[in-house]
């Protein structure tokens, strides 16, 4: 335990659906984080995200987005202050997905005080276990940013 409270990083995605696995890839590239930080991988079903976040004071989530933007683009959302645009993640593998999970948790009062979401814009979501090149770069960028942020804070 440290000053930042209980901290978790949650990577979301389906590792057999191309760039949908970007969040999982982030979770697997977090070597060097302090041991006190919990790293979780989830497939993206909303109620599991609600449960997984509940015990923590601070949660950082990484997921693929499909908003029509440039593949590999990284966007950061401070969910403690603003809601995620629901449509933004609507194409994720599960319809009760991340954006809905965060808002239901907020409505139920179980949303941790500090929640950040990193969205990596995906290029292809068809069957297969490889990330596209721009998304690999996005994954690396997000992993680095998470490691740096958490090192500074802890």
């Amino acid at each position, binding site marked *: 335990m440290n000053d930042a409270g209980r901290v978790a990083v949650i990577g979301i995605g389906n590792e057999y659906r191309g760039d949908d696995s970007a969040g999982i890839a982030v979770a697997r590239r977090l070597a060097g984080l302090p041991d006190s930080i919990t790293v979780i991988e989830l497939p993206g079903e909303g*109620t599991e995200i609600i449960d997984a976040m509940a015990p923590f004071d601070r949660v950082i989530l990484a997921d693929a987005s499909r908003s029509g933007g440039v593949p590999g683009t990284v966007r950061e959302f401070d969910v403690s202050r603003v809601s995620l645009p*629901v449509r933004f993640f609507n*194409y994720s*593998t599960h*319809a009760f997905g991340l954006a809905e999970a965060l808002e239901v948790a907020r409505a*139920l009062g179980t949303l941790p005080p500090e929640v950040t979401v990193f969205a990596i814009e995906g290029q292809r979501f068809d069957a297969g276990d490889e990330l596209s090149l721009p998304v690999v770069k996005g994954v690396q960028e997000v992993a680095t940013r998470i490691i740096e942020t958490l090192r500074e804070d802890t």
Partner: protein
Amino acid sequence: MSKNGTTQNRTLRVGLLARVEGEGALHVRVKNNRVVDAKLKIFEPPRFFEALLRGRNYLEAPDITARICGICPIAYQLGASHAMEEACGVRVDGVLRDLRQLIYCGEWIESHALHIFMLHLPDFLGYDDAIGMAAEHKDAVAMGLRLKKIGNMLMSVLGGREVHPINVRVGGFYRVPTATELAELKPELEWARSASIETLELLKTLTYPDFEQEYEYVALSHPDEYAVLDGRLRSNRGLDIPIYEFKSHFVEEHVKHSTSLHAVLRDRGAYMVGPLARYNLSFDQLTDGAREAAIEIGPGRECNNPFRSIQVRAVELLHACDLGLQLIDRYKEPTHPFVETTPRPAVGFGCTEAPRGICWHRYRIDYDGTIRDATIVPPTSQNQKSIEADLREFVTQHLHLNTEDLTWKCEQAIRNYDPCISCSCHFLRLDLERDE
């Protein structure tokens, strides 16, 4: 015609079907005030997993097929395990079969709780999604989440983890739980039992469209159980066959507007699988508690209104809690966690009742256990034709509604089936078109 949205020719279009696993499209065309076309479109080729299985070892099939669906992995793991066991000439019975029933209870609880509370209930309470509902019905949402979590707990204890369980294998399990581990689940299951009755009370207060239909229901049937793991395939119109005859009676057709195959009963057409089918064919085999609650609170002895499938799911939720408690009470740890299997060149079949209906498997393996070919028929693709038929009839009856309301109701009608498109292909986007 009047101006409230009932022009003679129109096409309904819904850009995206929310709260369904994946993406698909629905297209409805109305001509001279008659529905002339209703098509559920699915865009993606579905057979990736069948190709992936070829050349793999037979013992790998349960773990590979489990990845088809994050909501109903047990249906795939057990369907594949049963088929491989049959190919090897082995039968798994007794306490190992009980454990299989118990893990299936976990999957049903998880899947039904999710669908009832997070996906279907918002429709009936008049919300666009679970977010709006959560703000004003906190207690109901919290109850749904806790129920679902109890399903997860069963899956964790028996499956090794909640999502994509890793402990199920051909012949049984890698590790079986201790009696103490199972007994610890009882208080939560007892709570879940009461919560299921509370759910039925809540669902009784909702308003349901008057929409009774005639379906050919198809489900597994078993002489002593509300069939889930095995049995014969039966229908309310006289079908009664062993599962290996499935392909002689059911045909999967390519249709122009969908890359997912459409299953039909040969020479008869659409049929329905899932909660309504099981309920109407095997009502008497529900647990005493579930049967009594169904009669006292609803939906009654028989249910032919797909919108009331939400009530049927709640009865099955109660049944799964009751059955889970019975199985835990009689559990005695087996001496060995699985039955040994020796491969031989053979064909094996497996069919179980996934939360959404029968999930059918057929595999051919070689003398060394290599899988030569695989066929999987998931429930959602079997219900596609019934969904289209419902839509055609429902739109016909509700042409007086304006486009927005009609569209919303059509989405609800599709959600009656809890379609899990990740099973039948992966993404499903629904488009319902209407030009005026």
